[in-house]
């Protein structure tokens, strides 16, 4: 077990900066998820921590020790690749044994360790197969078994679930979380899937353009986004951002309450807010309403999401009296995109 820390870590490829000054601390035993859009530098950051890529500047510490100049094999890490990178010509057993042999473990102990790892991931009966004879889910487990077999200090995982189909992915996510809990190994997990991030992470680091925009617990990142990027990246559909009198006002689609919907407890009074519905989309598990706020920003399209349990009849082309808890409103500086302190919603405009 160990902590992982990066200090002002930078990586420049010829012509552009992939990672631009990242300070990040992963606590002992923590499951930290790196979340960000494609190309934001997640893989590059992970590979630098693994030692597969050398940083342009900055420091990497594992277990409090600077590992800048250590090769990957000396960093006591294990990595699971997006492609799993199983050695195609070796059997599953040999794949799992590979890291043990590489570190010179005594021959007698290897078989036992391999069996133990295989049992843990339920792949005992696959030990003699070659990777090509495995399904996607089985490959993923072999990759995990290979990663944990030599008890690394840190797990690094790069989108290990992205090659699985949706159903298997849910299952594997759950398993992964349990294994990590059980082993208690410090884990850095890269994904661009926010559902994965929310479900797996003890904390989430949201990245964009090579920098970490926000680091926090999943709910925190969701509820209190630090800037418009985080607000727009998390949530589906994402947070509505409405320009009102020189600030951007943000609120989640599910936070605008339909007429007749119950107000939440303990978040202060709800103020009325008129909503002109232009289109209704029935999703089965709920409804999405597209429209505008005629009193606040008649030109800005917003999306409102109604839960399955809200039965109010809503028709396109009409305006309804919705309500909103003022404490749910977030305010952002339209220039920098950063959060600014909450303020009262500007007075109603007369039509």
């Amino acid at each position: 077990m160990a902590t992982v820390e990066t200090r002002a870590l930078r990586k420049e490829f010829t012509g552009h900066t992939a990672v631009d000054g990242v300070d990040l601390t992963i606590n002992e035993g923590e499951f930290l998820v790196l979340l960000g859009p494609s190309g934001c530098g997640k893989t590059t950051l992970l590979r630098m921590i693994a030692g597969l890529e050398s940083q342009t500047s900055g420091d990497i510490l594992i277990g409090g020790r600077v590992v800048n100049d250590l090769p990957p094999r000396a960093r006591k890490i294990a990595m699971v690749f997006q492609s799993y990178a199983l050695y195609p010509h070796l059997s599953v057993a040999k794949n799992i044994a590979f890291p043990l042999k590489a570190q010179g473990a005594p021959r007698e102990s290897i078989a036992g360790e391999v069996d133990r790892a295989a049992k843990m991931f339920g792949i005992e009966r696959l030990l003699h197969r070659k990777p090509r004879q495995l399904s996607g889910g089985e490959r993923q487990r072999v990759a995990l078994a290979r990663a944990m077999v030599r008890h690394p200090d840190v797990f690094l995982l790069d989108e290990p679930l992205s090659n699985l189909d949706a159903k298997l992915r849910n299952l594997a996510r759950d398993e992964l979380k349990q294994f990590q809990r059980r082993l208690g190994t410090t884990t850095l997990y890269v994904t661009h899937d926010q559902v994965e991030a929310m479900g797996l992470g003890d904390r989430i680091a949201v990245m964009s353009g090579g920098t970490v925009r926000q680091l926090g617990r999943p709910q925190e990142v969701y509820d209190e986004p630090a800037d418009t990027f985080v607000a727009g990246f998390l949530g589906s559909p994402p947070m509505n951002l409405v320009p009102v009198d020189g600030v951007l006002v943000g609120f989640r689609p599910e936070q605008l309450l339909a007429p007749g919907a119950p107000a939440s407890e303990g978040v202060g009074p709800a103020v009325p807010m008129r909503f002109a519905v232009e289109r209704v989309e029935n999703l089965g598990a709920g409804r999405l309403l597209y429209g505008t706020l005629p009193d606040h920003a008649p030109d800005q399209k917003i999306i409102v999401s109604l839960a399955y349990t809200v039965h109010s009849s809503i028709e396109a082309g009409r305006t309804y009296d919705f309500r909103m808890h003022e404490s749910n409103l977030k305010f952002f500086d339209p220039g920098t995109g950063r959060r600014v302190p909450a303020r009262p919603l500007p007075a109603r405009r007369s039509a």
Partner: protein
Amino acid sequence: MTAPALARPGFVERAAGVSDSARWLGRLMLAPAVLYIALVVAVPFLMAIGYSFSNVTIGTSTPRFVGLENFRNALQDPAFLKALGNTAIFSLVSQTLVIVLASILAIALQRRFRGKWLVRLLILLPWVAPISLGSIGWLWIFDPVYSVINWTLRHVGILGPDSWPIWLGQPNLAMASIIGVHVWRTMPLATIISLGGLSSIPQDIHDAAEVDGAGFFRHLFVITLPLVLPILLVAVLFGLVFSVTDMIVVYVLTRGGPFDSTQVLASLAFFKSIDGGDLSGGAAVALFLLPVLAVCAVLLLRLARRAEVV
């Protein structure tokens, strides 16, 4: 389709039938090539087998069936046995060298560096240049009087004042020279093919090996080489086919000499049949290549199946 189609449905339907039916169109498009190959490869091939059982010479017009006589003669002919042995030595040694050298070179070439395209061009030259012309280049390099190799060795001090090897004139040296030229000639193909195999290994696999703690040699011998081995073997089998059947290097450099010490089956077949006029004897000698080729072909097909999964 268009208006005339409606006017003459019968004809168009039939035409459309051929140009749309995968089966018939396929046969039609394949037929010319297959016919041609049958005429210029299969027929002569059968003729060669026929010759080897007859007594046909350049002069005869009515060949006679002689059974296995030509083969029997060949097996009793010391020149043939010598050529058989030479062929085996020369192709096995040269291809063993090629497999080792080509993998070393391919691994070295994997790195990116400036001017790589030029290096690749130079390394490929021996393979692309007509081998008869390349061999002439070597003939000059091995010249008994003006050999640049000897000149250099002497001036570096390796050769004493009274030793002056005649590269193509002394039996063992001649064989070594022929082998060297063949290595020179077939190594580029094996190198480039192995390089292709190496670059088709996903970077992830190398990264995984590194993270898993493999050092340089474990990485090389447990991961990299086994992964390129099938494709490397493909290259070597091709090299084997080329070297076993090649007579050009021997023809240009030594004509089989000195004292038949570099005669191989291919060159022997040529000298027997074209220079000596003994078509049937030459054919019989050439046909001894067939088992080797058949084994190579079978191995190639097997490998092809294995390599697919990498």
